Structures are given as C-alpha cells and as structure tokens.
C-alpha cells in the first residue's frame, strides 16, 4: 500500500530542483569535458602541447644543468686528483716530509668532499626548480585547456542549453512515460526509461560539492524505490510517477533561477594559501598541542586540518557578533565531525565519500547555539545551491512566481543527516530560549515568540523544554528551533555493540529545527516543515536519527498555539529498518498524537 507522502514545500522542491538541474547538466555531458574537436588538432591540444613542450624544455634544461654541474664537479675533482698526484710525486722524491704530505692530502680529500656536496646541493636546487616549473606549467595548461574544451564541446553544452532555452526534456520524458497511447499500459513498464534517467541523476548528485545534495538524493532514492520495487502496485507506481512529474516541473521552474549556470564550466584550481595560518597564533597553539598527541601522524593531520577549517568557519560566521568559541568548543565540533566520519565508514564501507559529512552545517548549528546563548539572532540559513539563490535574470525567461521569489528554503541545504555526528558536548547543546525582549514590534519588524512544548509527560521529568519561532510581523518566512530532554532510568537496553545494560540511565534528547515556514498576516496562521533530530545518550550511545515533520500554528493576540504532526507509526516503519539505531518519537511522551506547543510573542 502506498504510504501517504508528505509534500515538500515549493521552496524545498526548488532547492532540490536547482541541484538536479545542475546534476542533469553534469550527467548529460558525460563528465563535462571532452577535448576532441571536429577539426582534429585544436586549441586544446595546442595549449596542452605547448605546456608539454615547456615541460620538455624544463626537463632538457634540467638535464643540461645537471650535466653541467656534474661536468664541473668532475673537472674540479680531476684537478684535485692531479694535485694529489703532484703531492705523491713530491713525497716520493723526498721533496715533502711525511707530515706535510699527510696534511695536504687531508686537505685535498676534504676539498673533494666539499665539491661533491656542493654539486649535490646544486642538483637538488635544479631538480626542485624543475619540479615546480613542471607543476606550475601543468596547472596553467590544465586551466587553459579545460576552459577552452568546455566552451568548445557541443555535446557537453547541448543539454544545458536546452534547459536554459526553456525546453523541458524532463517533462517530455515524464509525459512520454505517462502517455499510454490509448492502451492500458502498466506504469512500471512506462517509466522504465524515466527511472533510468533519475538513477543517473541520483548518481550524479554525488559530484556536487558538499552535503547539500543529500536531501535531493534521498528524495530521488525514495522515488526510485517507489517506481521500481517488485511489490509496487500500478497505482503506487503511477502516484510516484506523478510526483516525479511534479519534481520535473519544479526542475524546469528552477531553470529560471538557474540562469546563473552559464554554458562555460571552468576548471576550478584549488588554491592553496601556505601563509594563511602562518601567523594565526590560536591555530598554531592548537596545532602545536596536536603534535603532542599519541595518535598516528595521519590522525594528527586530520585533526589539525579540521581545527583549522572549523576555527576559520566559526570565526567568519561569528565575526560581527562578538561571540567566540573556546578551544574546547572547537574540539567538540571537531570530535562531532570525526565521529560522523566514523559512522559514515561503518555505513558506507572502507572507502568513504569525503563529502558525506557536512562540516558547514555542523559548525553553523553550534554557532547558532552560541548566538542563542548570547541572546542574539541565529544566522540566516543558507540556500542549497547558488542557482537557487540567484535572482532570475531577464534573459532566463519567465517572471518568477511569488513562491519562486521567496527566501530559498533551508530544507535542502540545512538538513543534518542522520550520520551527521554524535551528540555535541552538553555545553554546546543547551539552547535556552533568548530572554524576552520588550522592544516594540512595528509592522515589518522581526517577531520572536518563545515558549514550550505542552502536554509532554512521558515517563519522567523533562530536564529541558524550550522552543522559539522568529518571523516578520509583515508575514513571510518563519524560522525556529526547539529542544526537549528526558531522563530515563531502569529496564534493560541493548547497545549498538550488542551488549545488554541492566537498569540503564539514559537521556532522550530531541532537537527541532524549523526548516521552512510561512506566516500569513491575514489569517494569523503559521505553517511549515521541521526536522527532529533524536539522540540517546547514557549507558550506551546510539547514533542520532532525524526525520521531518509538518507543523502549523495560529497566533491570537500575543499567543501562538500549534503542533508538530509526528506520524510515529510511519517513522517506526521507516526508521526501524536502519540497523543499530534506536529512537523515540517526541510524540511518544505527549498526551496527544501530535506535539503541541505554546509560545508567547515577545513585545507589545
């Protein structure tokens, strides 16, 4: 039986769609770059060839230089040998006494050694310079060559062009799949080709930098499962196909926003700044302490790199707030990231995809927690792709719909993956609501409402319970977060490593992040989607689990009452298939099926 699907918001779909557009471009070009031109030896080859000619010249120069160095060395040593022969001759004739002969011979031996050492140093310099020259030549040549090739390869550009011209290849494919031609056709057969296309897209998403493609990947994976499983009924398959059509429409709508994706895909030469941390005393201190670790050199290197990356990101994000993270907090973030890698390796096998851990998201979350502690507004969420951030260009076609012009949804870009790491340290995780402010909230100003989840009783005392929403009094996007904790004692529990713990003490923790939301001034209604992340700590610690829920609320006067709709049965069905995971729905400890909350608007 087809399960009810929670519809993604348009903004979220556009976020996904923008990613997919990008990936379709990548997938359709078979790797984006090809150098063959119709005219045979083209500019690409000429550029690469030129670079290699230079390389050869470097090598020839190096060989010549080495030869010259060796020739000079040999000539000088021959002179020394000649002097030694003279000394030996003079000694043989009795013209030199033994002591003088020995002293002079020793001096000549030392001189020969010095000649050898100097020649060796000179060869090293030549070798190093050659290596650097070759490397820099190739860096330049690759950039030139690949820039030209991406601009010249018609096959690589055709697909992107068709999208940017407003053609609808995805919709066309879906229409073809849905069109029965008057005959009754099993949809499972109809969308075989479409499924193959989506599989390629899913594969292609791996190639996008960062973690932002995970939601799109999950959505596609779900579609593919629903479209191709052996137990899927035709009705279910057709429903999945219709959802694919909607996704396809969103993709094409996103094309208007993807106008920034130009035809040219340029080689991105990873810049290395060798001096950026040379005088960063904080990192130097951390790095120097890292040298005292007993860990492997590789472990030290990973930690040192992580601390550098985490520290720099946090510093940039907090630059204007006056808030700083302590070394301990940086380490806690690094530990969370490292744990996420560990979990990913368990999940994915020995060869990891390095992008599987979203470092940006983890840093941003902790930074927001610290900002909340300081009573400051959280950072705005990031859009999943540049494409979805761009204002549609006039050339790109249609006028954006009101939805398309809204703030990009954080849904695709901010979703912490279940493997995003273990629980941060308590001091990082506490997220009390900001102190109520008494500032007036005139039309169009930011409104903050704080409060608690209600009717949470469960089987123990809540040790934390807070929630807040932030939005503009003139309507529009809503952000927010919440946190609840419950201490449980007793019973027995099986840990992920298979051991059983009797009478365990454990803490259930739920973090709620509002991922999208809208406030409508006319009706006073608020609604959107949120992600709940559950962590269980105590006698044994389970990997975190996340799931999405819808939420809605209504504002009357200064009060907001609402609820998160958590379908625990559906979650159990889906999430219990994950090995080594354990979780509790937040609604489990609620007196109602949903998770109600009540907030008070701060201000008049």
């Amino acid at each position, binding site marked *: 039986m087809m399960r009810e699907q929670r519809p993604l918001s348009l903004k979220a779909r556009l976020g996904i769609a923008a990613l997919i557009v990008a990936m379709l471009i990548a997938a359709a070009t078979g790797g984006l770059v090809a*150098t*063959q031109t119709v005219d045979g030896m083209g500019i690409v080859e000429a550029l690469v060839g030129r670079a290699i*000619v230079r390389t050869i010249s470097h090598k020839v120069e190096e060989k010549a230089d080495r030869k010259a160095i060796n020739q000079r060395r040999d000539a000088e040593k021959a002179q020394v040998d000649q002097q030694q022969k003279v000394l030996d001759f003079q000694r043989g004739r009795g013209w030199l006494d033994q002591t003088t002969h020995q002293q002079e011979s020793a001096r000549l031996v030392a001189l020969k050694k010095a000649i050898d050492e100097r020649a060796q140093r000179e060869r*090293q310099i030549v070798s190093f310079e050659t290596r650097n020259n070759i490397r820099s030549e190739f860096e330049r040549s690759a950039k030139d060559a690949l820039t030209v090739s991406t601009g010249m390869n018609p096959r690589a550009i055709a697909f992107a062009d068709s999208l940017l011209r407003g053609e609808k290849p995805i919709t066309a494919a879906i229409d073809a799949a849905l069109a029965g031609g008057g005959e009754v056709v099993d949809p499972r057969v109809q969308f075989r080709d479409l499924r193959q296309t989506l599989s390629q897209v899913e594969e292609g998403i791996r190639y996008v930098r960062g973690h932002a493609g995970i939601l799109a990947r999950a959505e596609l994976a779900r579609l593919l499962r629903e479209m191709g499983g052996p137990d899927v009924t035709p009705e279910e398959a057709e429903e999945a196909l219709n959802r694919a059509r909607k996704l396809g429409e969103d993709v094409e709508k996103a094309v208007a926003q993807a106008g920034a994706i130009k035809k040219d895909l340029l080689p991105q030469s990873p810049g290395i700044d060798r001096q950026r941390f040379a005088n960063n005393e904080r990192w130097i201190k951390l790095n120097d302490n890292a040298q005292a670790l007993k860990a492997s050199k590789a472990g030290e290197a990973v930690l040192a790199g992580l601390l550098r990356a985490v520290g720099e990101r946090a510093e940039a994000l907090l630059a204007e707030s006056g808030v700083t993270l302590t070394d301990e907090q940086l380490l806690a973030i690094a530990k969370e990231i490292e744990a996420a890698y560990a979990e990913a*390796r368990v999940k994915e096998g020995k060869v990891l995809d390095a992008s599987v851990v979203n470092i940006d998201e983890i840093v941003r979350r902790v930074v927001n927690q610290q900002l909340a502690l300081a009573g400051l507004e959280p950072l705005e969420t990031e859009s999943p792709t540049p494409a979805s951030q761009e204002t549609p260009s006039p050339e790109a076609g249609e006028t954006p719909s009101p939805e398309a012009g809204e703030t990009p949804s954080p849904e695709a870009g901010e979703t912490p993956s279940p493997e995003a790491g273990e629980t941060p340290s308590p001091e990082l995780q506490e997220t009390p609501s900001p102190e109520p402010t008494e500032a007036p909230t005139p039309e169009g100003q930011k409104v903050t409402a704080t409060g608690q989840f209600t009717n949470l009783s469960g089987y123990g005392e809540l040790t934390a319970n807070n929630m807040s929403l932030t939005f503009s009094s003139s309507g529009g996007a809503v952000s927010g977060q919440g946190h609840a904790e419950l201490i449980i004692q007793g019973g027995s529990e099986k840990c992920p490593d298979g051991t059983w713990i009797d009478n365990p003490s454990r803490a259930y923790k739920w973090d709620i992040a509002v991922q999208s939301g809208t406030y409508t001034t006319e009706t006073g209604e608020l609604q959107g989607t949120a992600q709940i992340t559950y962590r269980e700590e105590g006698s044994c610690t389970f990997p975190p689990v996340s799931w999405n829920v819808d939420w809605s609320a209504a504002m009357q006067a200064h009060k907001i009452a609402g609820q998160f709709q958590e379908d625990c049965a559906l979650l159990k069905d889906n999430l219990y298939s994950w090995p080594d995971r354990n979780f509790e729905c937040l609604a489990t400890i609620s007196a109602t099926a949903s998770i109600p909350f009540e907030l008070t608007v701060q201000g008049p």
Partner: protein
Amino acid sequence: MKRWGILLLALAGLAALLGSCGGGEDEGGAATPGPPLVLPDIDVEIDEALVAQMEDAVAALPDPLGDNDRDQIRSMIGLPDAFTISFERSGEDGDGPLVRYETWYYYELNTAYEFADGALISNLPMDAVDGLVFLPKKYDPADFERTTTWDEIVLMLSDPDSFVPRELEAEYEVPLVFYAGEQLLVVFDDEGLFYVETVPLTAEEES
C-alpha cells in the same frame, strides 16, 4: 612544558615549506629540506588538558587503516575530492628511485595534503570555495600507478572515444603522450604514466 621556536607548521607548514621552498631529493630519493627555514619564534605552551581533549577527539575518528599516512588519511576521511599525482625520478642524474608525489584536495575540510611515496609532507589550507563545484569524484588516486596504461584508464571513463592521444612532434625526441577530458588530464612518458590531475569545474556566474 614550554617550547621555543615551535615547529610552526609541523604538519601544515614544515613539510609545506619543504614542498614550496626548497625540497629536493637526496641520493636515496627521499625528500630533503632545501634552504634553511625561517620560522616565527612564537611561544607555545603544551596544555595537557587540551591535549587530552584532542586525544579524545582523535579517538572519535575511524581507526586508521593502511601502512602509510596517505592510506590512513584515506581510511579516515575518505577519498579526496580532487588530486594530482606526478611520478618523478630522484637521484644524481635523474635515474634514481621513482618518487610518487600526490596532492589530495578535500573541499569540505578546506585542506590539501601532500604526500611523497605515501608519507605526509604537508597539510595546507585551501582557499575557501563558494558556489557550485562539480567535483571529479569518479576517480580514485589508487587507480593510478606508474605502470597504469591508457587501456586501464579507459575503463574509468564514460566516453573514452572522446579522448584523443596527442604526441609531441618528433623534433622534441621525447615520447610524451597526453589525454584530457572528463575532468581528467593524464600524461604518459616513455616509462609509463607521468602525471595525473583531476579537475573540479565551477559554473561561471553570468556577468
């Protein structure tokens, strides 16, 4: 415990400077320091509590697997997002042992690691990259050896027919062959694979 004149870039800097400021090779082919290094003289205290926290953090990493730094880093944080490999002869006359130099780029970490025959020689900060980047993730540096042939590389490609081998003109008297495409640049010399670079691509913003 106090240390003077710290090993400033012990991971990041020292070897980086080897790579950038004067690394050469000795008779045995190993990387050796070039010109003397000038390091800032900064006092750093080893904070034992901090080190203990670091031990705790490092312990969260996956267990390192492999016999060298390169393989261990790979086992802990995965394949690099992009990489370059060059095979270079060491020795007095360029006929010594072969050294495999690699630079691995990790975009999420903003970090590049350089290796010589698998030994970590530098750990460097990458410039931050914003925007959409297509990473050449289908390539694995372990698949490229000095002995790797073009026929073996073909198996990694989706459209090998679009690659055309180009040789240097005869006047250069050096049998170098190069191929470029699918975010990959490979160069062969008369002894085998000589240079590999995988190339991330960015979508240029419309001006």
